[in-house]
């Protein structure tokens, strides 16, 4: 019997990861901190055209793009004269399991098959679990999904319970856990016990699976408007959505398009707190993931995370929970599209930004997700009330994560908070350099850190000096 003791298992994580992903990450190490990121991405072994064909064969992708004319009109009703950008929505809910995550899961499961694994495992409480389960079902692979699902009272977010149901529907084992980072311990133990493929969100396959979305949306917009989109808004959490979409846009030649990450503001709530767990109405696409993953991408379940948002983010915005519920409501009432709520995070920002931008500007909301029992604004707001969160009409400043959800009743009340990317870059650099003796940092490391954070080499050197002083 193998030693399942917590620390002993964590000590074996490197070997477990290498076997379960089939990638020897060490071959990409180039210095004390430097990695060959593009070299890692080349592990995928096929280009975006082949990725499109693999996905198409599995019913994934080729989703419709539609102009949300009524939402544009709604934004214009509250905009200064001459303003009110055009909003377009990429309807990713049309994928087999109901979200863009099918793009990521399809290449992960394809890879698991190619490499001869008999099953796949994913640690996720979100749409990705259903996507992996759906793709595994089609491929005839065993599938295990590990969810953070309940607080210590055994109470679970309705959205997460719905995801468990979907996974089970597709024939996957669902292991539902209470709150805590020890989920990773269970995940490692299962990988070791089963020898299955780690369908991590952070492998090159999972990120490459989203490049097709960037390419497709550029093509959609060229057909609809005869030019590239001005802005693509991406709901941002772990970084894969931003990274894959932005890489796809670049591959499609849409180099002038601004990539905007959007997350729900959940400041003040601790992601590992048993008490806070059920006081939030968003289980992903929120600041509790977006900030740590942007600043420290490699604190994930693989040695080198292929999702590196700082490389690709042109802007990062925060919206409130109330604004995303508002966006979900008007999407239903004005466009006849019942989607989200979580997938409408970037839509909430689009409605606010559209008011400020000229009428010929084009904004693309690059995803939607399915709606169902539990995964629905009524269910989620009822659950919030049961967990002592006040739900009321009000402006964005009235939202207090964990205590108050204030839903605007008028489009002029929507807004965004701009996150200072310069500060995030500094946090990234500070974290990367922490604990590393400055004399071990070589030119290749400086170059890598600058590229990885989109900072200047001078900024990296300045941070290096600061960390030397602190040391």
């Amino acid at each position, binding site marked *: 019997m193998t030693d399942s003791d917590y620390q002993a298992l964590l000590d074996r994580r490197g070997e477990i990861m290498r076997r379960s992903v089939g990638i020897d990450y060490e071959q990409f190490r180039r210095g004390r901190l430097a990695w060959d990121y593009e070299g890692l991405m080349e592990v995928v072994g096929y280009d975006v055209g082949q990725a499109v064909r693999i996905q198409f064969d599995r019913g994934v992708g080729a989703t419709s793009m539609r102009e949300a004319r009524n939402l544009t009109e709604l934004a214009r009703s509250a905009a200064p004269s001459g303003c009110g950008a055009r909003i377009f929505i990429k309807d990713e809910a049309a994928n087999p399991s109901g979200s863009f995550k099918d793009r990521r899961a399809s290449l992960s499961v394809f890879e698991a098959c190619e490499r001869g694994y008999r099953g796949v495992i994913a640690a996720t409480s979100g749409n990705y679990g259903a996507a992996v389960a759906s793709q595994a079902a089609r491929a005839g692979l065993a599938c295990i999904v590990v969810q953070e699902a309940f607080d210590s009272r055994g109470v679970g977010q309705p959205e997460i319970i719905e995801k468990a149901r979907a996974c089970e529907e597709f024939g996957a084992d669902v292991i*539902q856990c209470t709150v805590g980072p020890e989920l990773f311990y269970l995940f490692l133990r299962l990988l070791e016990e089963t020898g299955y493929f780690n369908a991590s969100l952070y492998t090159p396959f999972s990120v490459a699976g989203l490049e097709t979305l960037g390419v497709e949306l550029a093509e959609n917009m060229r057909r609809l408007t005869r030019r590239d989109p001005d802005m693509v808004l991406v709901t941002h959490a772990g970084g894969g959505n931003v990274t894959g979409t932005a890489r796809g846009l670049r591959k499609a030649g849409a180099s002038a398009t601004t990539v905007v990450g959007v997350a729900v503001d959940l400041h003040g709530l601790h992601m590992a707190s048993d008490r806070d767990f059920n006081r939030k109405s968003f289980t992903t696409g929120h600041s509790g993931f977006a900030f740590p993953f942007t600043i420290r991408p490699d604190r994930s379940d693989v040695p080198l995370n292929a999702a590196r948002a700082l490389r690709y983010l042109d802007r990062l915005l925060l919206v409130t929970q109330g604004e995303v519920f508002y966006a979900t409501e008007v999407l239903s009432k004005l466009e006849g599209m019942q989607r989200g709520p979580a997938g409408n995070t970037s839509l909430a920002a689009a409605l606010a930004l559209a008011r400020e931008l000229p009428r010929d500007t084009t904004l693309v909301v690059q995803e939607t997700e399915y709606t169902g029992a539990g995964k629905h604004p009524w269910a989620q707001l009822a659950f919030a009330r049961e967990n002592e969160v006040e739900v009321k009409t009000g402006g964005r400043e009235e939202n207090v994560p964990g205590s108050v959800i204030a839903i605007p009743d008028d489009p002029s009340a929507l807004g965004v908070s701009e996150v200072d990317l310069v500060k995030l870059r500094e946090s990234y650099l500070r974290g990367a350099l922490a604990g590393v003796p400055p004399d071990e940092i070589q030119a290749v490391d400086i170059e890598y850190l600058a590229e990885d954070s989109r900072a200047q080499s001078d900024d990296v050197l300045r941070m290096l000096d600061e960390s030397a002083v602190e040391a």
Partner: protein
Amino acid sequence: MDGSAVEKGCWARIHRIELGPSERAPGIPDDTAAVPFESWTNGWLVDDAVVGERAKVRTLSGRVVEGVLVEVSPGYSHSFGSPPAALQRAGEDARERLFEKSGR
């Protein structure tokens, strides 16, 4: 109900304490550190079992997992809830702005 006998082959739910409070990861918030890390798994009972006692299930992926039998035929009861007034007001405002003013 605790003590009820359940036949082998039934779809059931087992509960496990994966880590006790003293075994939990360092650095987690106090409220989380004070409670055990638990898990629930569904599967078919491998043998006849009793609710509230230890049992083994064979899961959809074919694993055999042991824990305490807590539920027979576990289903799902999550719903759509009832309409929140604040959300309805938002929808009404949007419809009035777009459609009533234009007389549609």
